């Protein structure tokens, strides 16, 4: 079956919902939003805790409330929503193959917004030593089991990685009656928000082992135990520090990766955030194809994913009049104190301000951020402290950016 639309949005999470609402606001009429799940909201529906919406709604909401608020807004628009529909592939000509309940569809779109969220790093990806029994799973998967299926995957749990999902799950498991024995973090600092450490670990007396990792997993059919070890400054295991811990559940909260498979297969270039390389309008290297949310780079806050979606939605509408023929693509670069930066390019034909988002590589106190265009400092921001777990966003007004720029550099340095 065939169908033609102006804008196709892949993914109905915070970013996809933002994209749809942004596109409607900018005047688009024929919008199709597709999600493989049976309801809107993406990852939000399994994040039953509160901590969402401060920036967008000015109040603290649970994940499902944030999702339902956006879904209610969407219901007032003419956006067509297909649920239980899986996008199999897209092409540079912006044709998408979609498997839905009524069969296979070929959808031709003028623009596509790709907002498929992220994937969790697995035991294989971190080369976790030992066996692969049941009971070793990613924290987000455990969250899905517990919060959406009502299934408690273990009674005595250990958590590897201090990312927010791991911390949130430590509390959730404790509330449901499981014993959480500890959280190990290989870095000398916690990767989650301070407030999550306080309310998810300290409140339940759960120890956080910094500079520690799991050196071995035991159990043939089901997880029986793990070895917890100390690591040195370089992250190498210190022999003789092993502590044997019996447990039936090991959760991994060791990072997220943008879900880019479909975009990559279509030939889109990948950036250093591991999501698509985009320009300032969030357009990928495929003209007319945009990306936003966790599939572009991992966001700590759903609010930011949503706002980025809105930007992508507006930019996509702008592009309906015609894809820019010539894209300038001035590269953005950064120094070693910055982990990654989005966007990868600046295209001067886009009329909006340039939003630069990045994370520092290590925690920093008293530092300065400078944006340098062709050797000239165009923006300076002083910061009291910065953490890798908190994304930094700087807005460069369009008027500060000259035409024909060769380079834009973002520098993060200690302040003397």
């Amino acid at each position, binding site marked *: 079956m065939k169908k033609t639309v102006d804008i196709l949005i892949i993914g109905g999470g915070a970013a996809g919902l933002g994209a749809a609402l942004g596109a409607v606001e900018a005047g688009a009429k024929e919008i199709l939003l597709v999600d493989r799940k049976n309801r809107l909201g993406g990852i939000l*529906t399994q994040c*039953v805790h509160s901590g969402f919406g401060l920036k967008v709604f000015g109040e603290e909401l*649970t994940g499902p409330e944030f999702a*339902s608020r956006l879904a209610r807004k969407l219901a007032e628009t003419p956006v067509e929503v297909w649920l239980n529909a899986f996008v199999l592939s897209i092409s540079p000509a912006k044709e998408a193959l979609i498997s839905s309940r009524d069969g296979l569809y070929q959808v031709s779109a003028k623009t596509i917004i790709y907002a498929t969220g992220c994937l969790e790093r697995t035991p294989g990806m971190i080369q976790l030593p030992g066996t692969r029994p049941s009971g070793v799973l990613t924290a987000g998967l455990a969250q899905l089991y517990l919060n959406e299926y009502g299934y408690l995957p273990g009674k005595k749990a250990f958590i590897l990685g201090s990312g927010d999902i791991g911390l949130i799950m430590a509390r959730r498991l404790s*509330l449901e009656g499981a014993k959480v024995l500890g959280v190990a973090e290989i870095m000398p600092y916690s990767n989650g928000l301070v407030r999550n450490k*306080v309310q998810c670990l300290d409140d339940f007396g759960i120890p956080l082992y910094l500079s520690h990792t799991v050196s071995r997993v035991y159990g043939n059919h089901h997880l029986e135990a793990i070895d917890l070890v100390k690591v040195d400054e370089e992250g190498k295991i210190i022999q003789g520090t092993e502590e044997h811990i019996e447990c039936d559940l090991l959760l991994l909260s060791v990072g997220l990766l943008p879900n880019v498979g479909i975009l990559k297969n279509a030939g889109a270039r990948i950036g250093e955030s591991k999501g698509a390389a985009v320009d300032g309008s969030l357009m990928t290297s495929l003209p007319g194809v945009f990306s936003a949310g966790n599939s572009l780079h991992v966001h700590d806050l759903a609010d930011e994913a949503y706002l980025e979606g809105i930007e992508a939605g507006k930019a996509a509408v702008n592009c309906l009049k015609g894809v820019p023929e010539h894209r300038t693509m001035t590269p953005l670069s950064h120094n070693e104190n910055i982990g990654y930066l989005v966007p990868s390019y600046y295209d001067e034909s886009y009329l909006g301000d340039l939003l630069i988002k990045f994370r520092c590589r290590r925690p920093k106190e008293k530092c300065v951020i400078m944006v340098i265009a062709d050797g000239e400092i165009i923006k300076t921001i002083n910061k009291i402290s910065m953490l890798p777990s*908190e994304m930094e966003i700087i807005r460069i007004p369009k008027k500060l950016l000259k035409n024909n720029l060769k380079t834009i550099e973002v520098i993060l340095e200690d302040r003397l």
Partner: protein
Amino acid sequence: MKLQTTCIICPRGCRLTVEDDLTVSGNSCPRGERYGRQEATDPRRSVSSTIRIDSTLVKMCPVHTSAPFPKAKIPALMEAIKPLSAKAPVHMGEAVCQNLLGTGIDLLISEDIER
């Protein structure tokens, strides 16, 4: 006794010190002051969980307390909500249970689940 704690009201996570006379320092905004005082006298936490639901879409329905709940009573709260269940359609903000354990705090539905 002097209390050292971390404000959990917003992601900034200010380090607070609450003196015996309940003066608070270290906060960056008035909400932190209120939190510090509350934490020193009657600590409370927002609680989110799930209850069973009769629905064609989902098995569990997310719920949360209408206000931060007295910390010491949270284990009892978790027991009290275990037997609860809902039937679709439900909408966010609807109360599943009122005046939980006599606190005046209600248990609210977090998500619109239509069928």
